[in-house]
């Protein structure tokens, strides 16, 4: 089955439910710590354990973070929102209900604009974002005939961000997901760590014939913990649904699990098997009343948001929208970039700095899994390297080698250039003698070139550059070589 032909005539409709773990120090309804990776049940107090008689008390910081998200997405922040109980039995849900917001969420009706691969933009609606507590974890490995329960995560604050079904492809869904991911980290309300589960996503996927008035029956895909898997899971599900429909079948509304090992989704439970959660307002918690002054206080703490920053990068640094988007994908990267530009002498160095930050620098970070804060080449050092490129001390190509040494040895550009003798050769006679040697050593190629095989020019550039250990000034070398080859 070929996916593209299969999809012809079908429209894909995707909505995402994102769970962002809020970066509060304590839990949403208790004073327990929220740090990841502690010994099982060491961060669960009586409230988290759902002991008889205990009561929840709302963490104001979680409210502040939700409001921050609401303001950053142009949403309506509810002056009165209500916590409800979602009732179901599960061992890692200590109270037998999850405290969540149901009919009256704290944030409603916002949107985010995403940029697609073709450079076009699309607005994705945010239906709502509500506060809720996380459940614990059931552990099955290494226990014979039993399950372990770790309630460290129980009561961790989550912001569930529900989109409109506005996305029409897995790529759009990923663009939106990344946008939210960037935003919550800018706002410092979530660390965005998908491996540790602090940023999770469920995808609602349906397909319909183009032009069909009603949405198709949707399936909810759970348990996807990376951008790549979200994309793969959606693509798998789209093909599966179209396949079912084209063979005359019907889609059952159900929850499906994505198995990254097999790259497939599998049914988890159908709508008929779904719980009746019996939501009702939690009588232990008062309605959350938010005053205008609180909203304004929060608004005053908003940082420059990714879109604003990208627009500024375009305007001030003359970057393309794409580059500006990449550089503003995280607040840390953008900050690093701006520090490089400023140390390298301002907007004149902006494009060169952009290429280096997006290229070699980001490559090294990823390769060595290093955070920007711990980068082996700090912004001032990278600026120092760029200055040597700009003043022709070294070529861009040599600079790549210098950078690697700087990264490996945590050294600055000048000392590396000095120690390794990488200073660019701009002495015309030295370059000329290198060219002469190369021409003398390759009479056959010289003859062919001169009889019209122009593309051998590259061969001579390479050989001559090699003869200078790559240190010749490239523009100078080109010019001299052209002259000599043409027999001038």
């Amino acid at each position: 089955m070929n996916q593209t032909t299969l999809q012809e005539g079908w429209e894909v409709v995707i909505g995402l439910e994102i769970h962002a773990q809020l970066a509060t120090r304590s839990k949403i309804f208790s004073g327990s710590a929220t740090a990841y990776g502690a010994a099982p049940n060491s961060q669960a107090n009586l409230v988290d354990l759902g002991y008889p008689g205990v009561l929840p008390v709302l963490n104001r910081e979680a409210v502040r973070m939700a409001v921050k998200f609401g303001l950053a997405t142009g949403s309506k922040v509810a002056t009165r929102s209500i916590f409800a109980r979602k009732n179901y039995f599960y061992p890692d849900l200590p109270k037998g209900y999850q405290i969540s917001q149901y009919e009256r969420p704290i944030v409603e009706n916002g949107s985010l604009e995403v940029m697609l691969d073709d450079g076009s933009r699309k607005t994705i609606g945010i239906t709502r974002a509500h506060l809720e507590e996380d459940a614990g974890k059931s552990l099955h490995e290494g226990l014979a005939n039993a399950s372990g329960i770790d309630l460290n995560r129980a009561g961790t604050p989550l912001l569930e961000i529900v989109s409109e079904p506005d996305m029409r492809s897995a790529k759009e869904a990923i663009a939106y997901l990344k946008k939210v991911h960037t935003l919550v980290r800018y706002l410092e309300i979530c660390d965005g760590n998908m491996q540790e589960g602090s940023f999770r996503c469920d995808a609602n996927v349906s397909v319909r014939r183009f032009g069909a008035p009603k949405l198709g029956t949707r399936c909810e895909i759970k348990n996807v913990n990376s951008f790549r898997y979200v994309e793969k899971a959606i693509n798998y599900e789209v093909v599966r649904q179209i396949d079912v429909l084209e063979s005359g079948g019907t889609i059952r509304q159900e929850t499906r699990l994505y198995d990254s090992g097999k790259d497939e989704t599998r049914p988890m439970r159908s709508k008929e098997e779904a719980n009746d959660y019996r939501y009702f307002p939690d009588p232990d918690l008062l309605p959350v009343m938010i005053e205008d002054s609180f909203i304004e206080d929060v608004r005053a703490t908003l940082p420059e948001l990714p879109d604003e920053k990208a627009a500024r990068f375009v305007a001030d640094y003359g970057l393309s929208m794409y580059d500006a988007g990449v550089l503003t994908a995280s607040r840390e990267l953008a900050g690093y970039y701006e520090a490089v530009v400023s140390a390298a002498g301002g907007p004149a160095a902006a494009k060169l700095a952009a290429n280096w930050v997006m290229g070699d620098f980001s490559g090294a970070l990823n390769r060595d899994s290093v955070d920007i804060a711990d980068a082996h080449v700090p912004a001032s050092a990278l600026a120092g390297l760029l200055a040597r490129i700009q003043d022709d001390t070294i070529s861009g190509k040599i600079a790549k080698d210098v950078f690697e040494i700087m990264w490996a040895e945590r050294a600055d550009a000048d000392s590396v250039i000095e120690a390794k003798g990488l200073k660019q050769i701009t002495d015309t006679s030295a370059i000329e003698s290198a060219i002469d040697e190369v021409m003398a050593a390759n009479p056959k190629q010289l003859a062919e070139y001169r009889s019209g095989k122009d593309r051998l020019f590259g061969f001579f550039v390479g050989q001559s550059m090699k003869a200078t250990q790559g240190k010749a000034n490239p523009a100078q070398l080109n010019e001299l070589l052209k002259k000599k080859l043409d027999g001038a």
Partner: protein
Amino acid sequence: MTLHTRSVAELAAGLARKEFSAVELAQHFLSRIERSNAALNAYVTVTAERALADARAADEVRAAGRAGPLTGMPLAHKDIFCTDGVRTACGSKMLDNFVAPYDATVVERLRAAGTVMLGKTNMDEFAMGSSNETSWYGPVRNPWDLKKVPGGSSGGSAAVVAARLAPVATGTDTGGSIRQPAALVGISGIKPTYGRVSRYGMIAFASSLDQAGIMAPSAEDCALLLGTMAGFDSRDSTSVDRPVPDYVAELNAPLAGVRIGVLKEFFAHGLEGATGALVQAAIDQYRALGATIVEVSCPSLPLSVPTYYVVAPAECSSNLSRFDGVRFGHRCKDPRDLMDLYKRSRGEGFGAEVKRRIMTGTYVLSAGYYDAYYIKAQKVRSLISAEFKAAFDKVDLLIGPTSPSPAFDIGAKVDDPITMYLNDIYTIGANLAGLPAMSIPCGFDGILPVGLQLIGPHFGESRLLSAAHAYQRHTDFHRRVPAAYA
């Protein structure tokens, strides 16, 4: 004068004068418990050793000159309050093995004030009942007539105070669970305004209705304890941050000019036996004491029982979900799988009345029924609140019976839940509206006490207590002790 027939106020005075020590007082009550509890089944746990240790500590505090008004005062806690290191069973097999790892705020505050816990009192299972017959530990007997119920759910607390097995006891009131048993055993009991006393550490039945209070011989005794129990608690979001008045200092506020409303709806249906006449006599007494008596109406009040039996079960069905056999409480033997663990642990751990309410509550919250039951009940609840509010624009207090009848025979109503539920017909309204209310004894129907109910506006506890105190200065019903326990 024997120790146990004295009021809390008199005992406090005796302790202050060092007429007797806290240890002597605790020993006195502990020996009474040893003698009489088996027949009454009022205590489910007696903490004798701890009581004596605490009493010794209280005596030391007094010797050091640091005693407060309650230092060394023995009391009993309803077994719904968590008590650190002491079994807290809530009348249920489900929690028969549960030793609470912390003190409820009420327990903590009373302990900090120097009171001495004698033990934990029997109660209807999870406070669901009006006769104390749903307790897994068996029914409590009414000290006035051992064939009769003491009322419920705070039946154990009511009985220990009536039989003077403790000078005073804590209780909780979700639909009348302090007032109705207080009425049926002839003592005073106050349910404060919702939010006045912290619910932290009180095992939840219906969170929006539950309120802790105090049960003692007299209103003055209640005033002595309530001030210590009340006040904001940051661990309970529904507790109200508002200063606590000095209830004792305000006890003698005059009755003259106080407007008391007789709730028409409380007299619409026949009150059994002498109840109607005794309540009427009490109203006449108030008039004689200078109060202005007017008739008022809350027309939606007759809907309070059905409203309550939607709201309370809905909340309880969710509150009791945590009893699943996983972390604490009863767990069935050798569960085959998770579902078996849930079903048998809960099936074995809960009694019939609790199951009935969990099922009712689950039903009214279910998809398709929520609007028809839960939402509608909330609307009626708002209506009842509004009508009470309107009534309190005209009067300072409302007055009426606490219970339609005196104590009934053990077993008489157990097979008929609806009849049982109607015991709370006069008390539920105050819970739905979150109002403070109290019951004080106003006479006897034969040998059985009858209760008079006073209801106040939100945070009107001072007025309630002073009005009750005024009546008790002119009557002695609250001083009477069943002959067998005198």
